């Protein structure tokens, strides 16, 4: 058994290292691949070219936001900007940035692995508490952390956005950092990740809800009712996990919400946001200050000023809509995300990590400037739940759909932009197809998760 474990671990590291090697090979010919110019990979928010331009403007004592080129965070500018001008002779430009992105990817994968190990432990514990898992040989628990890390590292979307020099690996790292902090109950870390992620791309702000749930209720677990029904629970001592607390407190009708931790978390969020804002204000004090930053970053995201094609569905719509209705539709489109937050939070409050995955997937569909990097993030988070989602339907269909769409997208773009025989509808049709597949994916994941809970309940009642 231990031998096998060791072998598996060895295999994991081989695959992880080979993915890094693969990236390094791809980085060495950027001119040929020309990925950084692809609309699927780099959006106005994540493109490194724009970042380099912003840095150049700043070096020339101008506002980095002048000319509507750069729309990212000023902090990212200070960190990555110097790397964009550094050239090593004989090497492709932006090599250092690529290396930073590779490192970000590795870190993300390791953090995902950490999250997965926690979730796996919780899954095993819960199963044992509910009495499904008498012995360890009874049912195989998949090492979801390893799987998620490998899915993240080998996902073509991740590789493409890493090699294609978009800043999404860093945004993804921040999101995963927040989740990791919440899962391992390192409150300041969670707050830091959340604040940075929100600062970089705004949409991760929705993750506040799952993180509060994670800190308040503990890790993903079957609904509390099941535990109440269970009579015979082995009293196992695992003080670190909140699940055992649930087991101990099974007489009460609900699990306690740890207000203190949450308050702690909110305090840290406040502290980190203040810190980030002060840093931003310092770096921009000559160029319009924070107001300018909010206008040029969040304002740019929310008002969808750039209508260049991407894999989302907004650009086409807002290129067509009359100016008179523009504000109305802006509100309608953005409220879409907000509408879904509450119902999902109520239904899935016992599974906060899964809730975070769903939020990220939804925001990647309804984002104003989505890229494949966002899909890479939610796809790897999805892999954290392989144990629960093992009976997910449509898997093959979805796989074929994602594959087909991602191959079709460059072809349609070529037809429209280079050959001139197609038109914008070709590319937009592809974007609609992509959105549809994503929606099917989210719906199927949620229903598979709910079915899993139902199955637990059914077998639990049979058990008795």
């Amino acid at each position, binding site marked *: 058994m231990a031998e096998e474990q060791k072998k598996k671990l060895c295999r994991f590291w081989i695959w992880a290292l080979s993915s890094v090697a693969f990236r390094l090979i791809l980085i060495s*010919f950027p001119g*040929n*691949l*020309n990925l950084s110019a692809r609309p699927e990979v780099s959006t106005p928010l994540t493109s490194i070219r724009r970042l380099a331009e912003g840095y150049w403007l700043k070096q020339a004592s101008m506002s980095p936001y002048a000319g509507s080129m750069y729309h990212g965070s000023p902090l990212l500018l200070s960190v990555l900007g110097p790397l964009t001008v550094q050239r090593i002779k004989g090497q492709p430009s932006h090599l250092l940035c690529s290396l930073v992105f590779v490192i970000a990817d590795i870190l993300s994968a390791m953090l995902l692995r950490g999250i997965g190990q926690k979730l796996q432990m919780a899954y095993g514990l819960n199963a044992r508490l509910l009495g499904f898992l008498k012995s360890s040989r*009874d*049912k*195989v628990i998949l090492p979801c952390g390893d799987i998620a890390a490998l899915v993240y590292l080998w996902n073509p979307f991740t590789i493409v956005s890493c090699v294609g020099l978009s800043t999404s690996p860093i945004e993804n790292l921040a999101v995963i950092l927040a989740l990791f902090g919440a899962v391992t109950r390192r409150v300041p870390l969670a707050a830091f990740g959340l604040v940075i992620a929100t600062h970089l791309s705004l949409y991760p702000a929705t993750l506040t809800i799952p993180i509060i749930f994670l800190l308040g209720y503990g890790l993903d677990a079957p609904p509390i009712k099941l535990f109440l029904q269970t009579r015979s629970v082995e009293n196992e001592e695992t003080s670190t996990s909140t699940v055992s607390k649930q087991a101990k407190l099974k007489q009460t009708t609900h699990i306690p919400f740890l207000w203190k931790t949450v308050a702690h978390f909110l305090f840290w969020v406040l502290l980190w946001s203040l810190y980030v804002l002060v840093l931003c204000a310092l770096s921009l004090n000559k160029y319009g200050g924070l107001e300018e930053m909010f206008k040029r970053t969040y304002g740019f995201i929310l008002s969808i000023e750039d209508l260049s094609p991407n894999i989302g569905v907004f650009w086409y719509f807002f290129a067509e809509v009359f100016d008179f209705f523009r504000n109305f539709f802006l509100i309608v489109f953005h409220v879409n995300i907000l509408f879904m937050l509450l119902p999902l939070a109520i239904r899935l409050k016992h599974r906060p990590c899964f809730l975070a995955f769903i939020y990220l997937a939804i925001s990647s569909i309804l984002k104003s400037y989505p890229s494949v990097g966002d899909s890479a993030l939610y796809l790897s988070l999805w892999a954290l739940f392989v144990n629960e989602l*093992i*009976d*997910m*339907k*449509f*898997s*093959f*269909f979805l*796989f*074929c*759909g994602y*594959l*087909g769409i991602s*191959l*079709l997208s*460059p*072809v*349609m773009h*070529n*037809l429209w932009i*280079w*050959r*001139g*025989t197609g038109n914008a509808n070709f590319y937009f049709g592809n974007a609609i*197809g992509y959105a*549809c597949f994503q929606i099917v994916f989210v719906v199927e994941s949620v229903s598979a998760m709910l079915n899993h809970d139902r199955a637990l309940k059914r077998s639990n009642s049979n058990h008795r």
Partner: protein
Amino acid sequence: MAAVNRDNEEEVKTDDGSPKIKPRPIVRLGIFLIAHSPVFSVVFSAAGVLALLLLPLLAKNTYISENALMPGSARSMLSNRDVSDGSKLVKDIKNFRLNHEGQGVEVQKLIGKYMSDMGAEVSYQKFHPEGNQFHPLHFFSGPDSYTLLENVSCASYGVNVAGIIRAPRGDGKESIVLVTPYDFINGGDYEDLSLGIVSSLFSLLSRVTWLSKDIIWLVADSRYGDYRPVAAWLTEYHSPSFKVSDLLKCDEQNTADNFRRAGTMAAALVLKVDGRSEKFEDTLSIYAEASNGQMPNLDLINVVNYLAVHRQGFYVKVEKVVSLLSSSWLKIFGEIFEAVGKLAHMLNPDWNFGIPAADYLEGSATLASSLYSQALGIPTGPHGAFRDYQVDAITLKVSPRFPPDSKTRQHDFFLRGARLLEGTIRSVNNLLEKFHQSFFLYMLTSPSKFISVGVYMIAFALLVAPLPMVAASLYIDGCKSLTNSTDNPTENFKSWKWLDAAKQVFTLHLFGFIVTLLPYFICQVPGQHSPTNRSIMWGTTSSSLLLITFVTMPGCSPFSSRLHGTNWAILKSVTISAAFIGLCLMSIINFATAEIGALLLVPTCLMAQPIKPALRSRRLKSLLGAFCSIVLLTIGFPVMFFAISKGLLGEGLVGLSLGGEFWTWLESLWAWKSATYLYIGMVHLPCWLLCLCILFHPS
């Protein structure tokens, strides 16, 4: 995509089997289709082939879609004086060549002098006739400017001459291009005629007041082929390289800084005169296919066709496969369709879809040629270079009905040729936007009949429709048999059983990718090798790679004795899905390739099934099925198919020379950046291998 969507929905609904929800009608339809997939796949494939044969019947008459063109509405202004200018140029060139044997540059200067006498700005451009190189990553990237050869010799280079007339009403932002390929060293008499026609026209255009687009006349140095000089000139025009080329030092004549430009090109016409017409009239052949089956806007062809037929009385034709005209089976089809059309007309006089059998034959021969040259992806003339820059261009090949030295006829010929070009230019001159009204995706069945994308896609859609259906039904079967066979209920990853098969499919596609890239490395092998040797190298490396794949990954091998995890039904389902995605992608890149590929690949994929149970059962039906799949697989092997199609054309090839021929053919494909090459390597070959795996599956 929609088809898969629907089918898979059904598939899951049936998996679910919850009695409470009654499925919607569309779901029930899908279930019905999947349940009877063998019948429907036969029906759909047959319908697809039939629809392909019906295409000449469905062709519509062309019409001029853009109103601004107004062809033939203005009276021609070309006078005898202009024509005599043209004749003079031809005469001068002939005299010059008689006196100065083999002095190419001087002829160019002569032409340049003529141009500047007419008031045009003249520029000379030197280019190097570089060989086409295969670079695997340059497919689909836009035209590249960074292919500068490092050390070029002065021994061989060509010189293009370009003259520009500035439009009196224009702002220099738009232009129309006329190209005459001309071999300065040993150009024949017919080539002189093309210069004569264009110079007559040029003489007129330098005087007219209605021009609003600049006119560029490019005399391309066709010593190194027609295409290369035009492509070199276009590259310099659109994306100049700022490095100083070595070519400039080669000659005393300075061509560096006088390259002239005239804005975006609205259209381009390539004029060639060759051979004598077999017909009684002067013949005009239109060539339109550019790389990867791209076509110029149909309106351009319409205008030329309209003016040539109705104004100048040319006999207009497009290329056709001559051997099909005499094929008896096609004739039978034509007669059947004619009879059916007559019958329908008798039943209801409004039904007029029947065409005479002879027309049908002509139409299908033209369509076959159109399909063939689109599928090959190699441009049929210098106009192909323009398409890379989104400029609509066609090649006009005129064959006069008189011998080239007849002076009296020449005048009339110049007059009509130049008037045709004048009318076309006048129409294009009227355009306010670039060509966009008419079709870009079409196929011609005659110069005045076309099949639009909406019609020909039906044939393809019918042909590939069985693929998702059969994939879904096999997937369900595979899942069922798996759930029955596995005793361990806890280890029931029902929904993920396809992962193993997907791994195998992916491995073989990766193999196909590597095989596609191998020629690049084989070309790098030092030393001169004949195509045969190179093909042998390629064959051995690929087959050894395949062996390595099979040895290291026993799951992939068709010959492993032990029964491995993958169920053949699931493997086939994944294979078919991969083939479906590949074919659909290809149909968007290059329809003709996808159509021909689907004709080969769809039956192969559908028929493939393990041969062992068929042999064991010894039933006639299963033996027949196995035999069919073996035959289809044999034909489906690319080399084999190449040999067969060569054999049909009457060039029997055997043994190693076949390999050499095949290599040369592929080399031409990748040299022209044809997507067909990618299709063969990355879709056809892996799917063919997978079908082979299924055939020898140890089940």
